[in-house]
């Protein structure tokens, strides 16, 4: 191992700040004030004997009285008429879809409790992102409206219908427009129901606008290829991927799908065959995608255009002006990158996260020159996830202001919050005669409107989606509407005078259009959940754009945002555009990079922070485009100097208990340039008074700099697959103090591929949902009391890179402090969960045997036995045990989501809700293991590999988590663990963990 290579979780650890050192020594952030109790206020000399006796007497009496209560009577209420398909205690599964992804909904006794990807769906992703897994909680959200409203007063649906129809008739009579404003609608049914309305009221028009817009790409493709679409990308076919500020594994377009495709080219199976793609990222803020890049160059937002111009010049030999000149590092990197790209013609692609037409035109020109169309970029089976048009929404506002709009409906659209000029929207809407929102809650836009027709949750609705050309998924309800809601499509049909039920409408629509010619019927679709109409064959596309003028426009754009400080807005992995802001699971999901929960922040480079005089917990005021906001500063290694990154999606004020006033709204920083809403601009930043402690899980549960990350380069790996795996058992003989644990039946183990894990965190949310893990809230996270059984540790390291961008080694620890900047950090993500050690240190210290080993190699945790000494957590070298400081689900202090009987219906009935004072940790989804075994026993057969899956494993699109039985030599996990890259974390202390990790392999430029 490189002895001089240092990995660190956060700057506190790197700098060894006193607070960090103190914190790392104790398992728990705050010790219990035992001494205080014993010394002063408690049982000291001041307490007379009488008081003691009084206390004792009261205590005894209270305990006796408490023990005398009668056993509570539990009612058992069976169905009056049991639905045929339901057997209490057995889950039912239904195919449905969420945001166009085919999913399987698991229901128990008629209530949905979790979502998993539909593994049988062709061409769609097999894992789920955090928002998908968390979405089941939204069904049980108490902040939703219970009834339709007119003027903030509950009304009957019939009254609302009468009002709406009158308004529609009036608008039609006076030839005013009826506008439906929505985010992208790709559902054939929704489009058909809008068409029905348009047929009845001819002045109807439909405006699609997305909070995070991709209209730049659509426009660019229209001018370049004559096809106004967002293409779909097949990163799996790419040998070289260059991304200029596109978080394509995270929030950019279809992040999960990209992850699955991209990682397929880098995971353990591909590496075994000696192949791996290379990923080069140019960006200002450290994004999740950037953290997974093989080579990452920090640039300012104003250099993005220049990088692309330089790349274009280097690849095509053209001589456009405006290339990179100032940034030497970037300039050399571009030359290397261009060489890579050219030598991988047709297997290389460049993507950009910009929403500017000219930038995207330039990207199109580069990709066209690289021959990426057809192989990697697919314009035939294009993506339909983002079709919003910024120009169309502009037009709507202009029309409204001109008094031409009679009726406006808002469907999944909240422009008062997420449009950059909120006031303009409000003013324009005030001039519309009748306005209505289909929002499920009285959100920022809905409260300014005249009426709300709350739509049902997708788990209560019939519908469909078509996220890609040729792919159709069905949405089927798994529960009756809980509140008095009605899905928007049904409302539209009723207002259009169509009396058919939404079920009949969806079914007829499918039978008439989608199913025709597929040979499948409606019932089959309900079972499989999707229809795949085959890939459209690749047409040939020639680039017809004007590169010259695009380049000069790009240079002009760069100049307009160039400044001493530049701001770049981004979508965070969990919160996205703010739609899911009331989802407590997502609020508490640590950001993949900063590990911040519950709020956004201004990310700046630590050295830059030093320059402007901001330290840890500092607060800064960021100003741009006439809007300013005060935000806590986050010292982010890897952030480009002179840049600040802020996440959108926060600062909602009318979303519900959990999400109200979390963070600050960053949407107003955006501006309209060249007809599209863009997220980069010139800014100023200054320190302001005060401190703010972010709820950051970054350095919690530290492993004190022990050597637990093993990383190698692809070149070294090719020479020796064992490289850097540093397996302890190869060189040392170990001795056992304990008897060997025998696992004659099953031995449950896991393999985690560090090269596949992108750190997205969807496994964390899946684990939360499956195992009833409570959300603890911002304050408790600050006290290091987050309950996540599975966390993803993010480690930074700094590489020494020479002029040619070749890695020559790793910066030694003592040199790190003298670095000029913290721009070139590299990151490794490591999922960390209970390692189910065969020699578990936690087991030996438990005084009551609450945690013991099983014959299947699992470390069991009996909650009812635990009485909370917390010795085990103290003794766990992996820091994966969590203590319940409170009854989070039944304590008014944690009233953010679960504190009511309704929301508690989301809990998985097969897993105990833990009470205050007990320890918990990853159980290896033992309820799933037991269920799988029981099924095999009932069916009188052996357990097959794949019969049991973990919740985290099922959620992982990258297939980074492999679980199974090590006693079955043919199981996937047994095969994976035979890989040369496998090492066990802290193997040297001989705790014999059961989770093997595979080394991180980075395809760097080697010296």
């Amino acid at each position, binding site marked *: 191992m490189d002895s001089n290579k240092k990995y660190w979780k956060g700057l506190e650890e790197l700098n060894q700040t006193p607070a960090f050192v103190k914190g790392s020594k104790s398992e728990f952030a705050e010790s219990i004030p035992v001494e205080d109790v014993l010394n002063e206020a408690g049982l000291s000399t001041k307490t007379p004997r009488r008081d003691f006796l009084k206390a004792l007497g009261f205590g005894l009496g209270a305990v006796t009285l408490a023990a005398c209560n009668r056993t509570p009577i539990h009612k*058992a*209420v069976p*169905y009056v008429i049991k639905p045929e398909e339901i*057997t209490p205690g057995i889950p039912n599964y239904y195919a449905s879809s969420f945001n166009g992804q085919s999913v399987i909904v698991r229901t128990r006794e008629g209530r949905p409790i979790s979502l998993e990807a539909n593994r049988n769906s062709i061409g769609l992703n097999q894992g789920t992102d955090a928002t998908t897994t968390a979405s089941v909680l939204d069904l049980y959200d108490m902040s939703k409206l219970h009834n339709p409203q007119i003027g903030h007063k509950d009304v009957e649906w019939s009254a609302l219908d009468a009002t709406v129809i009158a308004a529609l008739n009036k608008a039609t009579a006076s030839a005013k427009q009826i506008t439906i404003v929505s985010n992208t609608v790709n559902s054939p049914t929704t489009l058909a129901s809008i068409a029905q309305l348009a047929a009845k009221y001819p002045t109807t028009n439909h405006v699609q606008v997305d909070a995070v817009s991709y209209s730049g790409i659509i426009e660019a493709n229209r001018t370049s290829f004559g096809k106004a679409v967002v293409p779909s990308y097949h990163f799996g076919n790419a040998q070289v991927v260059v991304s200029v500020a596109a978080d394509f594994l995270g929030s950019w377009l279809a992040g999960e799908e990209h992850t699955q495709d991209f990682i397929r080219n880098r995971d353990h199976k591909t590496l075994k065959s000696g192949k791996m793609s290379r990923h080069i990222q140019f960006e200002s803020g450290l994004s999740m995608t950037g953290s997974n890049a093989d080579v990452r160059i920090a640039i300012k937002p104003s250099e993005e255009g220049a990088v692309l111009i330089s790349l274009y010049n280097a690849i095509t030999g053209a001589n456009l002006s405006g290339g990179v000149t100032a940034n030497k590092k970037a300039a050399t990197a571009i030359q290397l990158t261009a060489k890579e790209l050219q030598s991988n013609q047709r297997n290389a692609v460049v993507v950009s996260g910009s929403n500017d037409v000219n930038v995207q035109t330039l990207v199109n020109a580069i990709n066209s020159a690289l021959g990426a169309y057809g192989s990697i970029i697919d314009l035939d089976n294009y993506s339909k996830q983002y079709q919003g048009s910024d120009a169309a929404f502009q037009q709507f506002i202009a029309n409204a202001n001109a008094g031409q709009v009679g009726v406006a409906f808002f469907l999944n659209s909240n422009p008062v919050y997420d449009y950059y000029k909120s006031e303009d929207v409000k003013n324009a809407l005030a001039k519309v005669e009748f306005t209505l929102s289909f929002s499920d809650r009285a959100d920022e836009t809905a409260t300014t409107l005249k009426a709300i027709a709350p739509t049902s949750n997708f788990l209560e609705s019939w519908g469909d989606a078509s996220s890609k050309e040729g792919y159709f998924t069905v949405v089927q309800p798994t529960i009756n509407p809980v509140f008095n809601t009605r899905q928007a499509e049904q409302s539209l049909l009723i207002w259009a005078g169509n009396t058919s039920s939404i079920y009949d409408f969806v079914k007829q629509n499918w039978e008439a259009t989608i199913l025709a010619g597929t040979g499948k019927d409606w019932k089959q679709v309900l079972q499989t959940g999707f229809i795949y109409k085959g890939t459209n064959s690749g047409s040939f596309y020639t680039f017809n754009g004007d590169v010259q003028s695009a380049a000069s426009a790009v240079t002009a754009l760069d100049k307009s945002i160039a400044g001493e400080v530049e701001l770049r807005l981004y979508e965070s992995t969990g919160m996205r555009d703010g739609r899911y802001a009331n989802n407590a699971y997502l609020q508490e999901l640590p950001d993949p990079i900063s590990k911040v929960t519950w709020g956004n922040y201004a990310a700046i480079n630590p050295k830059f922070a030093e320059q402007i005089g901001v330290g840890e917990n500092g607060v800064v005021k960021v100003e741009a485009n006439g809007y300013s906001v005060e935000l806590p500063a986050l010292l982010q290694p890897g952030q480009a100097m002179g840049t600040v990154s802020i996440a959108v999606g926060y600062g909602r004020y009318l979303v519900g208990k959990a999400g109200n006033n979390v963070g600050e709204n960053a949407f107003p920083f955006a501006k309209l340039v060249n007809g599209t809403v863009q997220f980069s601009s010139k800014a100023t930043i200054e320190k302001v008074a005060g401190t703010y402690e972010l709820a950051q899980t970054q350095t919690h549960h530290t492993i004190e700099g022990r050597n637990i990350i093993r990383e190698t380069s692809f070149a070294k790996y090719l020479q020796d697959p064992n490289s850097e795996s540093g397996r302890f058992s190869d060189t040392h003989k170990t001795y056992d103090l304990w008897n060997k644990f025998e696992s004659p039946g099953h031995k449950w183990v896991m393999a985690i591929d560090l090269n596949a894990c992108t750190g997205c965190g969807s496994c964390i949310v899946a684990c939360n949902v499956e195992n009833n893990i409570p959300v603890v809230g911002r304050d408790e996270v600050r006290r290091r009391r987050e309950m996540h059984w599975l966390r993803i540790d993010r480690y930074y390291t700094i590489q020494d890179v020479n002029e040619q961008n070749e890695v020559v080694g790793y910066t030694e620890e003592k040199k790190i402090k003298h670095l000029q900047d913290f721009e070139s950090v590299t990151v490794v993500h490591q999922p960390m969960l209970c390692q189910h050690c065969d020699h578990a240190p936690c087991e030996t210290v438990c005084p009551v045997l609450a945690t013991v080993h099983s014959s299947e190699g699992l470390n069991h945790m009996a909650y009812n*036995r635990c009485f909370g000494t917390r010795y085990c957590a103290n003794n766990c070298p992996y820091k994966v045990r969590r203590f319940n400081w409170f009854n989070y689900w039944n304590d008014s202090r944690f009233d953010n989501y679960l504190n009511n009987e309704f929301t508690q219906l989301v809990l998985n009935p097969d897993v105990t*809700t833990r009470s205050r004072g007990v320890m918990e940790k990853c159980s290896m989804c033992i309820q799933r293991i037991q269920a799988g075994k029981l099924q095999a026993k009932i069916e009188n057969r052996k357990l097959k590999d794949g019969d049991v899956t973990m919740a985290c494993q099922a959620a992982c699109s990258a297939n980074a988590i492999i679980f199974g039985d090590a006693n079955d030599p043919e199981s996937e996990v047994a095969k994976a663990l035979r890989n040369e890259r496998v090492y066990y974390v802290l193997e040297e202390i001989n705790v014999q963990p059961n989770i093997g990790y595979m080394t991180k392999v980075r395809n760097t430029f080697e010296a």
Partner: protein
Amino acid sequence: MRNISSVLGRFTKGITLSFLMLFAIHSTSQAQDVKEGETLFKANCTTCHKVDRKVTGPALAGMSERHSEEWLVSWIRNSQAMIKAGDPAAVAIYEEYNKLAMTAFTQFSDDQIKNIIAYVKAEEVKLAEKANTPGGGEAGATGSSDANTWMIVGLIGLVVVTVLVIVILNRVIRSLENVILNNQAAILEAEAKNEEYTENKFAKFAKAFVKNKKLVGFAVLMLVALLAVGGWKTMWNIGVHEGYQPVQPIKFSHQIHAGVNQIECQYCHGGAFKSKNASIPSANVCMNCHNTVTAADHYDGELSPEIAKIYRALDYNPDTKEYGNNPKPIEWVRIHNLPDFAYFNHSQHVVVAGVECQTCHGPIENMEEVYQYSPLTMKWCVDCHKETEVNVDNKYYDDLIAAHEKLKKGEKVTAAMMGGLECGKCHY
């Protein structure tokens, strides 16, 4: 005296009960042909017929007056043939009951059919008697329904002995009083002496006791030990509800359903074979039988009030045979309450292990009202896991058995050896 009178009261009650029982037993002995008729009737006819009222078919009371015996015999044997032949009475009945054909019983001999008719006649007579003497049958029913005959006999014995003892004691007291009256003076003297003596003696003993520190210590220790043992035993039984028998919203009798009528457990508790929950049947399952079974013969021809509760739950009108729109679920009181942290799966035990329901739930087929038979403590679970052999024929265990060192030696394979004692198998 109050004691004695209450004891005597119980005594008389016991005697009355036993007499009534004797009466009940006696009254059941009847003629042989009627008995055979009863068996046949119950096996073949009750689905559609009742003696006292119309169900699917007509009420049978008075049929012998309405028709001749030959007519009845041929009707019962094959009514359709009679209708085809054009018998006016047969056709009339057929028309009256919406052309609902009665099942033909060609397998019966004439005698058998006559026996059935005799039984129906006997039932008619009984009904008439019942109508004349209201409440007459009830006492008998109470007597016979009491299963604990032995207990009553024992009680009677006990009462007799107690009465004897009291009488003897009274005699002794009276003779002693006589003696006292005779020797009043002498006794007074002796008493005074005695008092002094006892006082001295007691004080002496107390002093000696207090002085002897070891003895005091021992006594205190014993007291503490006694309290501890008592406390320990009580504590262990906190939350153990063996014998828990709450009052249920419907007086449902497992004895009638599972015991007398031999209905399979699975018919109502199908979940036990598929799922972790045995599941209480929904009201529509009850209706499979109680659509026609109204137990009216036990309630003077009226609908049983307990069955009426099912109808109410379903909002079902037995006269119009229609369901309303206002069903309300029956809220049973849960008897077996496992804590939340213990996972128990019925199908694991019933299907995989083949455990009889009675192993845990006790003689359920004899329970008029269900009570918790087993303690449901962890010790109870664990004890069973230690003893119960695993059904190794299940293919699931193939690899496991092959790998297990101990099992190769041919030892008994218990659930415990398969990991059935591990915490995480039940607690998660």
